[in-house]
């Protein structure tokens, strides 16, 4: 491993100072809190851990959080790609406004999002009323949770795919057409392989965000244990019961999961760099 000092002189001096600060900052904010989580959970015996995990309420929460996040991220992968395509490929009035709106779920306080989504999708709301007539319950059901998750994780796929789409030369599609490929073949064989790593990265980030989402979901979910209770809420409940080890045990699984997602994202990006060098 080579240190920056051994190379050419950097534009910004003070390697020791900045590096020291970086390590301190990361430790205080990330490493120490996370290792504490491990320590807390470590106080439980294996038996206790197992009972916590295997409790039907915990399992139901995991199933709902992971399943819901998977569906939300999947839906966003498809429609996010579509929106990115529209934003990159077409010029229309209001394109910039639409482009800005994409970031709104990032900027909006999640509680605000939760309240407005609930208002619309509740049986008394505009969309919820229509769905209710069709026999579909949106708010206070897994569907409502998925809607909230999809809302907060919308920007990821769009923002990761947009620059890659922008990079694709129109000529490449024309080349595919002159070689006899139809639209579907051109998309599947030429465009998709080029943007797939970006879409998957966006998918993974959207999934991670959806699993961890709390603020907007608690309003629309109804929070019925075993039915519409998500993992972050379960942790909250355990904390309110002063059951710290129980809360941390549940949280630990989320932590491991996040690490795995992070690893997956990094691997995807490495793959993207290898398969599509300029």
């Amino acid at each position, binding site marked *: 491993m080579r240190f920056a000092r051994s190379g050419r002189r950097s534009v910004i001096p003070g390697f020791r100072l900045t590096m020291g600060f970086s390590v301190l900052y990361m430790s205080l904010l990330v490493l120490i809190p996370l290792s504490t989580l491990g320590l807390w959970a470590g106080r439980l015996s294996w038996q206790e851990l197992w009972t916590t995990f295997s409790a039907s309420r915990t399992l139901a929460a995991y199933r709902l959080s992971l399943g819901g996040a998977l569906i939300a991220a999947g839906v966003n992968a498809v429609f996010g790609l579509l929106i990115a395509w529209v934003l990159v490929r077409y010029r229309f009035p209001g394109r910039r406004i639409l482009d800005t709106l994409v970031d709104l779920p990032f900027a909006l306080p999640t509680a605000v999002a939760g309240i407005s989504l609930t208002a619309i999708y509740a049986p008394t709301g505009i969309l919820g009323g229509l769905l209710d007539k069709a026999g579909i319950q949106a708010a206070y059901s897994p569907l409502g949770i998925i809607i909230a998750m999809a809302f907060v994780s919308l920007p990821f796929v769009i923002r990761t795919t947009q620059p890659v789409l922008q990079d694709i*030369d129109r*000529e*490449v599609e024309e080349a595919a057409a002159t070689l*006899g490929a139809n639209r579907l*073949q051109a998309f599947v*064989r030429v465009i998709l392989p*080029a943007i797939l790593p970006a879409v998957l990265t966006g998918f993974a980030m959207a999934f991670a965000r959806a699993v961890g989402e709390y603020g907007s979901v608690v309003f629309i979910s109804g929070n019925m244990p075993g039915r519409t209770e998500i993992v972050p809420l379960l942790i909250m409940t355990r904390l309110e019961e002063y059951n710290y080890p129980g809360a941390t045990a549940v949280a630990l699984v989320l932590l491991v999961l996040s690490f795995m997602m992070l690893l997956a994202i990094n691997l995807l990006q490495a793959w993207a760099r290898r*398969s599509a060098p300029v």
Partner: protein
Amino acid sequence: MSIEVANVTKRFGDFAALKEVSLRVNAGELVALLGPSGSGKTTLLRVIAGLEAPDAGSVLFEGEDATTRHVRQRRVGFVFQHYALFRHMTVFENVAFGLRVRPRRVRPTRAEIRSRVSELLRLVQLEGFARRYPSQLSGGQRQRVALARALAVEPKVLLLDEPFGALDAKVRQELRRWLRRLHEEIHVTSVFVTHDQDEALEVADRVVVMNAGCIEQVGTPEDVFQNPASAFVMNFLGTVNVFHRRVDSLTPEIDAVEIQCPDELPAGSRPARIFVRPHNLEINTHATGKPSLRGRVQFINAAGPQVKVEVLTEFGEVLQVETSQERYQALNITKGSEVYVTPKEMRVFFDDGRPNSA
């Protein structure tokens, strides 16, 4: 396969890229579309390919109307200026693409595809590169992959859009000779676009000179160079000296005398431009008795097979003169020397566009 373009017009918004252009390319011919940027040459190529739909007019392949035929069905091989290779595919997969996307019943078997691709890679001299990615190739190699890819579908017409435009001078020279040989080998009807007159004159059987959405002249390289049909063609094909004078429209075979006196206006004269190529100007250190322009040497570039001399005339015009190395040695001129320049061959185009009356 022959190509016929009939009265094709194409506009982009207010800009008319092609104005009623008609052109015939015979089967097996190698034709260059030559012109400055914005002359419509690339648009014409794309209309032939089916990548642009003309606003009016038609495109015929072998006498058959192909105007509404989709680019997929036209069986044209198209080579893009910036190669447009599929980055995530190896060289092999790039070349095989056109065969793999065929409908199942006309798709060659894997073994057939493999032998066809290796045959093509041999043709473009890229054997052993099959497993590389485009990013691992040089510009010239990428362009040859693009060519092999276009040829894989056995096109009836090969269209090349500034194929060597993005390459450096040395590689360009090699590739254009190579393209000429390749064409002699496979004899597919080919049209290529270029803004480089040397390239057009060296490679093509016939050259189509375009300007502002119109065809100025069609002819063999020798033809367009020796007998340019318009002032534009004369100007575009190589360096040329231009004299703005008034010329007697009754006797357009003018004499060097008329170049001498810019202010004299013979009766019945019309404003015209007189063109003289640098190698058609003779340079002397003394008046020879022949009508000539007096001037001073402003700049000399003796690096090259021909010596380029820049002369500032007494009328304030700057002339480009080319002379042989031997003659340059004999003349013994330096910067500032007084010289006499005599035009040997001239060409006159009247400014009002009417042809010479002769």
